């Protein structure tokens, strides 16, 4: 079981797969509607709007209203995909997500577009690195971060039928295909590469980098397992416990703040074990990003294959 990301492999904007799948589903189920905040373009809803003009509810630049309207539609039997740039969807409408969606058990599909640092030079106002931490604190809300186009399609298909509140983090920063034909199962991770020295638990844009890191670590004699943690909540605790049992250390990698994101979630499980293993959490530290494009910012914060490999190799060779 191994997957290798070749250098120069084709990369994809997951919003394309998102929109194609949503349109396909909407053709078969007229309960599917899209709600957005003047983000028809950035949420890639142009095709949807053209084919289903009555089912695209653009409320304008009004995120609190947008999420409330989505809840009202969901509570009336519709399946709303509420789409907006992730920083504004989660930051501006956090209380609506808590009260109108999660607490009210409204089956809204919240679609956080262009998350992480996808908006690069537009700066920290437009970065969505806090979303995972904020949303993890909300009871009853599923959080899904697909790693590539195939998984995006599968997650969209699942969400349309789930009838449960969920947040999908839909990437804009281009990523290679990594999941192959592995099925997406909500609440479960998938093992993209087996290994017995160290486990890298990665999500979203970091998954392909983790696979590359594992390949490079193998050349140094370190065997790295790579888990694609595409559901952040509820977390696949079993896979994490198994990793802590079967490998000697865990590295987490996420394009999000390390204050409360995937790493913190994994650590909470690891330290509750009788014999915890050492961990390294890679992510954005508790600081605002400098000016730069996405690739540069990922480099700046050490969210690269090289840094993941270094963390894994260091942990494998330490006596901790």
């Amino acid at each position, binding site marked *: 079981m191994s997957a290798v990301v070749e250098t120069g492999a084709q990369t994809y904007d997951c919003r394309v797969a998102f929109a194609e799948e949503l349109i396909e589903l909407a053709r078969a189920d007229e309960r599917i509607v899209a709600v957005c905040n003047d983000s028809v373009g950035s949420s890639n809803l142009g095709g949807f709007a053209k084919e289903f003009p009555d089912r695209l509810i653009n409320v304008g630049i009004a995120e609190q*209203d947008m999420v409330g309207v989505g809840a009202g539609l969901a509570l009336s*039997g519709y399946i709303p995909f509420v789409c907006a740039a992730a920083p504004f969807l989660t930051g501006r409408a956090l209380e609506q997500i808590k009260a109108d969606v999660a607490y009210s058990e409204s089956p809204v599909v919240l679609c956080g577009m262009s998350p992480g640092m996808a908006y690069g030079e537009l700066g920290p106002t437009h970065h969505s690195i806090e979303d995972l931490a904020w949303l993890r604190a909300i009871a009853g809300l599923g959080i899904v971060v697909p790693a590539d186009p195939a998984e995006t399609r599968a997650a969209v298909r699942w969400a349309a039928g789930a009838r449960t509140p969920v947040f999908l983090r839909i990437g804009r920063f281009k990523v290679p295909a990594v999941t192959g034909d592995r099925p997406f199962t909500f609440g479960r991770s998938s093992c993209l590469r087996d290994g017995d020295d160290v486990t890298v638990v990665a999500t979203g844009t970091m998954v392909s980098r983790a696979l590359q890191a594992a390949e490079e670590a193998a050349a140094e004699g370190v065997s790295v397992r790579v888990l694609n943690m595409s559901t952040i909540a509820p977390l696949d605790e079993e896979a994490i416990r198994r990793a802590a049992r079967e490998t000697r250390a865990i590295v987490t990698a996420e394009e999000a703040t390390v204050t409360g994101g995937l790493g913190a979630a994994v650590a909470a499980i690891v330290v509750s074990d009788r014999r915890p293993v050492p961990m390294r959490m890679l992510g954005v530290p508790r600081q605002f990003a400098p000016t730069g494009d996405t690739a540069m910012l990922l480099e700046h914060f050490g969210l690269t294959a090289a840094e993941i490999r270094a963390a894994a190799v260091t942990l494998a060779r330490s006596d901790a």
Partner: protein
Amino acid sequence: MLVADSSAAADWRRFRKELADAEPEHRREMLRRRANQSRTTDLAMIGRAGLGHVGGDMSVLDILTTLFFAVLRVDPERPDWADRDRLVLSKGHTAGALYATLSAAGFFGAEELETFAAPYSALNGHPNRVKVPGVETNTGPLGHGLPVAVGMAVAGRLAGSARQVFVVLGDGELQEGSNWEAAMTAGHRRLSNLTAVIDRNRLQQGARTEDTSALDPLDDKWRSFGWDVVTVDGHDHLALLEAFTATRGDRPTCVIANTIKGRGVSFMEDRVEWHHKVPTAEQISTAAAELAR
């Protein structure tokens, strides 16, 4: 989830039929008595629980009573009926008034009211749709009801349903910007199946609305957002009934219901401290005597 009380629901059906057949003045008297019974029930709940929002409960009860006992096409024994009218209580802190009303309509048994705010009760200090039939969405934080009601009205449109959506808002909560986002959406989309009812008692938690962040001219605000506006005496049941059932044009309707916080209890009326003060047993019995008139 609580379950319907068939016998109370049958009484409610009889009441509605009798009301529909009654002369206007008798109608007014029937609704006045019904609302005051709910006020007495609510005061007892608050006294027992040692908490509640008594002032706003008293001011909104004529609105809620008129809606549930004369207007809304709902069925207490089928709370999930898809084509029912919707009532969203945006001012969720007046849950006590809603619970007293829902119970009187048979959505659940009156004995449940005794558990208001007690440990593990379905009747939280703010309403929960997952636990209480007749509650359409969970409210409590202010400024949430109108956007959700707009979504419900859009859904009614999409479904080609005749269902009407009503949302009851406090006046103080109009200071939340989310309301005006939603007011724009409703005006822009000409949601004529949506009615916002403002419980205009002019008091918020700490002071008068006009001394805090003034709302007037409130009717002009709504009109300029694309709504039809009608202003009524929020304690005149016939005026409310007429406003709620008038033929709609092609715009959403805002009913500004001028009310008195603490209405019906002389020592509470229009006094800011009764926002969430808890009456003593003696005060409750004085209030009950006034409300029985």
